[in-house]
């Protein structure tokens, strides 16, 4: 039933699959279609009117800034490179690795959060979104810092790190090259696909953890359903 497309995205992520399962068994009449249209309108007004959101609706971080966590490590990595340039310190590599770990943790968490409510498709899509945005953000930031370095911005801090002859034109030419955009695209796609895979791992792990939750609920059941 195409009317489900009229529901808001958060609603569809949470209820579309099961609503579709109900509609497959239900005799869809004109009354059903009108009811669904009314339901779609209600869903759009739902949060504004009631201030409520389904507690189990997850898969999207409540705060978008968490997607920038890997980018923090990119900045830290760059600072370490400047401050410890010439040293044999492995700190720079460790910071970079921590950034990758933070990114992977974001993707895994995205999948894990969806353990109760999502299908494989929804978990994979959420992981794709998280992985792609977080990775692309970090990549753009890293490349920007690199370009600024090529433009000679950090010479005062570490003269040996970058070209001794600052040339902003190099950075500008490099930036507008289609090659840079292609790299960004490929990086984002790779990040998205890897993120999707990691989210599925997190989701599967969440399902496994969920078995224990079900056992705990069974203990609770006699007192909850008894009338």
């Amino acid at each position: 039933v195409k009317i489900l497309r009229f529901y808001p995205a958060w609603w569809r992520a949470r209820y579309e699959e099961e609503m579709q399962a109900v509609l497959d068994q239900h005799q869809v009449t004109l009354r059903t279609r009108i009811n669904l249209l009314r339901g779609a309108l209600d869903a759009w007004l739902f949060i504004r009117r009631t201030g409520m959101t389904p507690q189990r609706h997850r898969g999207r971080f409540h705060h978008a800034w968490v997607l920038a966590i890997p980018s923090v490590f990119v900045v830290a990595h760059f600072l370490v490179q400047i401050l410890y340039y010439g040293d044999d310190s492995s700190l720079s590599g460790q910071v970079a690795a921590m950034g990758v770990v933070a990114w992977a943790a974001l993707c895994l968490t995205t999948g894990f959060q969806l353990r109760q409510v999502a299908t494989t498709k929804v978990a994979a899509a959420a992981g794709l979104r998280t992985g792609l945005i977080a990775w692309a953000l970090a990549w753009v930031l890293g490349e920007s810092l690199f370009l600024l370095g090529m433009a000679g911005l950090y010479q005062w801090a570490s003269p040996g790190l970058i070209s001794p002859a600052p040339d902003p034109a190099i950075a500008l030419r490099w930036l507008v090259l289609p090659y840079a955009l292609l790299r960004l695209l490929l990086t984002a796609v790779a990040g998205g696909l890897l993120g999707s895979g990691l989210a599925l791992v997190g989701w599967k792990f969440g399902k496994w953890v969920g078995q224990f939750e079900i056992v705990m609920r069974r203990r609770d059941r006699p007192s909850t359903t008894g009338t």
Partner: protein
Amino acid sequence: MDAGPHQSKLKDLGRFSEPALLILASLAGGPKHGYAIMQDVARFHGTRLEPGTLYGALARLEPQGWIAPQALQGRRRPYRLTKEGANVLRSHVSVMQSVISTALDRLAPSTRSSR
């Protein structure tokens, strides 16, 4: 038990308060997925809940903590009544019971006198 707060909470659901009550009553018999709830409600109440109404009510009951979703079974997701949901249902039913018994008591003499 104080039925007041539960009563007002259920009424806060607006046009979904009646479907919500029917869903709570259905889930009191054990966890059910959407279509099973629709069938159960049709059986004990005669009301044919439409999917838009059913999920509108489920989406309101869930954040209240009165029902809880369980793991997907294929494409279906069963819901179960929580302890809080059972309390809401119990208090609402006790009020309804009081209304019914009062109405029956008061109707009885008038029925006798009309004969």
